[in-house]
């Protein structure tokens, strides 16, 4: 990098990288010119233009900035676990330029006031775009409708239930019917709570051996089926969030063939790890939904490859260390994952499970289309970009993580893929290190 931090007023030329977005195949070594927060020129025109600053992206891949549909910034209310400044910086380090903030804060984001609080916090301290997701029901209690239209007017991009269920199917049906009135998207994590009960691990080989309380696959699949039928009946735009079972992928594919408006996402760690991660009672891998079998993992990867699963999410859920310092069943579920999403994905590419183009689609155009954002590298588009070196390595450690939570999926081992530059609306959100 020549000079200091890149500002939006100055122009920037990025040279030498391979361009890749979810809409077309890779283009080698094309220059980009960024001016006034937008892509002013590409290719020869950019090459010829003069610029205030230049960035040499030799050996790097340049993609649209990543879009995360499910992320917990922990603010307001859970400052011991994270805050908007710390977690959006962690996201920028991971190559993300847009994160959807889960409504599961304290208080819950079920009012304009809380939505504004999140937006004000982001305006003041976030290097990237924060899009709040409103609570589907008041207090996320699953009993009364939230002010969905009001939340949307205040800037919520969709309505969701975070990690909590809507226990009552009649309430869920009415939520969908009401959301459909205004053309809103509902983002739901499917889980039948009476079947999940007190479980905290996949009901399978590892729970049998270690005597852990299982969450059976049917706790998810029964709920997916119920949601698909209700979406079909109400016509709402349904987004199924954080799938964990192979059977769920099949059901989504079937529903699409029948014309139901459904999209879906999966957490990156579900594509990489399985129930075996709990074999040493490692509380980091206490996750909800739980990591499931190898067959489920393969089916989820295939879902991403075939486009049945539109988006890969971070499911970033940072914790203070005390939340994880207890016997596994007494710990809280969740990982500080957003900084290593790209690296885990590149691991899948290295092993031949995904192509680089499929990975980039799942992190950019896939999630962007769910919430109606553009995500392509073309002239006049907003300059939300990620420049990463796929061949460089980094080693996550609790000292080096930017997130306030230090429970990353991989610690103390080298991972491929280092983000050199994250540009959000033309401004440097992460400058690499």
């Amino acid at each position, binding site marked *: 990098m020549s000079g200091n931090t890149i500002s939006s007023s100055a122009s920037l030329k990025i040279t030498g990288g391979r361009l890749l977005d979810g809409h077309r195949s890779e283009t080698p070594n094309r220059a980009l010119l960024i001016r006034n927060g937008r892509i002013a020129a590409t290719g020869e025109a950019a090459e010829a233009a003069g610029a205030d600053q230049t960035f040499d992206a030799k050996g790097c891949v340049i993609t649209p900035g990543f879009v995360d549909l499910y992320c917990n910034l922990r603010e307001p209310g859970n400052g011991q676990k994270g805050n908007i400044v710390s977690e959006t910086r962690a996201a920028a380090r991971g190559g993300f330029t847009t994160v959807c903030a889960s409504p599961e804060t304290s208080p819950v984001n079920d009012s304009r006031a809380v939505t504004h609080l999140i937006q004000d916090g982001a305006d003041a301290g976030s290097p990237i775009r924060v899009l709040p997701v409103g609570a589907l029901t008041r207090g996320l209690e699953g009993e009364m409708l939230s002010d969905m239209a009001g939340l949307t007017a205040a800037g919520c991009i969709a309505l969701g239930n975070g990690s909590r269920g809507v226990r009552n199917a009649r309430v869920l049906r009415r939520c969908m019917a009401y959301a459909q009135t205004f053309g809103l998207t509902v983002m739901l994590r499917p889980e039948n709570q009476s079947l999940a009960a007190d479980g905290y691990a996949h*009901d*399978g*080989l590892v*729970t*049998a*051996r*270690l*005597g*852990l*309380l*299982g969450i*059976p696959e049917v706790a998810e699949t029964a709920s997916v089926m119920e949601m698909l039928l209700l979406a079909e009946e109400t016509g709402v735009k349904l987004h199924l969030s954080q799938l964990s079972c192979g059977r769920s992928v099949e059901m989504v594919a079937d529903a699409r063939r029948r014309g139901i408006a459904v999209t879906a996402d999966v957490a990156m760690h579900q594509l*990489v*790890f399985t129930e*075996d*991660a709990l*074999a*040493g*009672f*490692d*509380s*980091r*891998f206490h996750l909800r939904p739980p990591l499931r079998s190898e067959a489920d993992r393969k089916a989820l990867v295939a879902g991403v490859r075939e486009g049945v699963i539109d988006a890969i999410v971070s499911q970033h859920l940072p914790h203070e260390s*005390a939340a994880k*310092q*207890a*016997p*596994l*069943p*007494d710990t809280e579920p969740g990982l500080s994952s957003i900084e290593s999403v790209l690296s885990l994905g590149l*691991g899948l590419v290295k092993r031949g499970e995904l192509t680089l183009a499929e990975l980039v689609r799942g992190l950019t155009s896939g999630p962007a289309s769910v919430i109606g954002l553009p995500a392509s590298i073309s002239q006049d588009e907003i300059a939300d970009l990620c420049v990463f070196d796929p061949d460089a390595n980094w080693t996550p450690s609790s000292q080096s993580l930017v997130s306030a939570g230090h429970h990353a*999926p*991989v*610690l*103390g*081992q080298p991972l491929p893929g280092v983000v050199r530059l994250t540009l959000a609306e033309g401004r440097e959100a992460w400058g690499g290190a």
Partner: protein
Amino acid sequence: MTANAASPNHLQLTRDGQLRHFLTLDGLNRELLTDILDTADSFIEVGERSIKKVPLLRGRTVVNLFFEASTRTRSTFELAAKRLSADVLNLDINTSATSKGESLSDTLLNLEAMASDMFVVRHAQSGAPHFIAQSVTPGVAIINAGDGRHAHPTQAMLDMLTIRQHKGGFEGLKVAIVGDILHSRVARSQIRALNELGAEQIRVIAPGTLLPRDVESLGCTVEYDMAKGMKDLDVVIMLRLQKERMEGALLPSEREFYRLYGLSQDKLALAHPECIVMHPGPINRGVEIESAVADGPQSVILNQVTNGIAIRMAVMSMAMGGQVAERQQKLNELNELNERGLA
């Protein structure tokens, strides 16, 4: 991709393969299990002397940390530690620190600061002893006295000792475990021990609601019909049925359970005539076992209790031996480094 978590072996064995914690039977080989049984055999003789003490843990402090109530297991651990000449402290944690809001880690760090050498831990959550050994007090030997539904390795080993005393060994044995396998830490440890020691057949006999999913992966076969399951058995192990199971909609009634899965004299008659009857206790007479069977000639339930002391002496002395050897090894390495530094 595998997670970078410590395997149980890495945690409970020293570099030379000696025991330093006793958390689970997973990963312990036949040689080591046999070593535990042989050591226990040598301690049985101690219990028969008029002065029942050996000085192996003299000057050591053993803390019995029971986060879950228990009479029998705690008393046998206490007796075992005392017969090894240790100082013993008994703590019932449900009634002390944790009810004041102190975290498990803080309680343990305080006890470690009192120069404890060994914690005997019973806890309602699976994996609690692993957590303590790995993250809280790695310099204290941890003995698992039962954690959640996960493991009860000393109980399983005393059962193995009882079986070996009566059957001479494990080759060719047909063993059944009957009842609530799903909630049983005892059953999980027994299945593991029987497999490692070479039993020929391990059957679990229970209705579908009391079996974990994928139970066969533990190395056993499933039998729903007790009459079939009893055929040719050398050993039948009955498990205690907790009354809560009726409330959780796992079983209709005690009466139906007893009729289908209770060990009566009629059902025992279907096994090999020399089949022994075992039960980890406490017994629910008339729920999982008929009184006449529990008190009958084939029952070895009271031998199990006696053997419990010897097994716990064996495990405690071996784990302390491993801890001491490891400390000595580290000291030697340090001295060696110092000498090289001087040279």
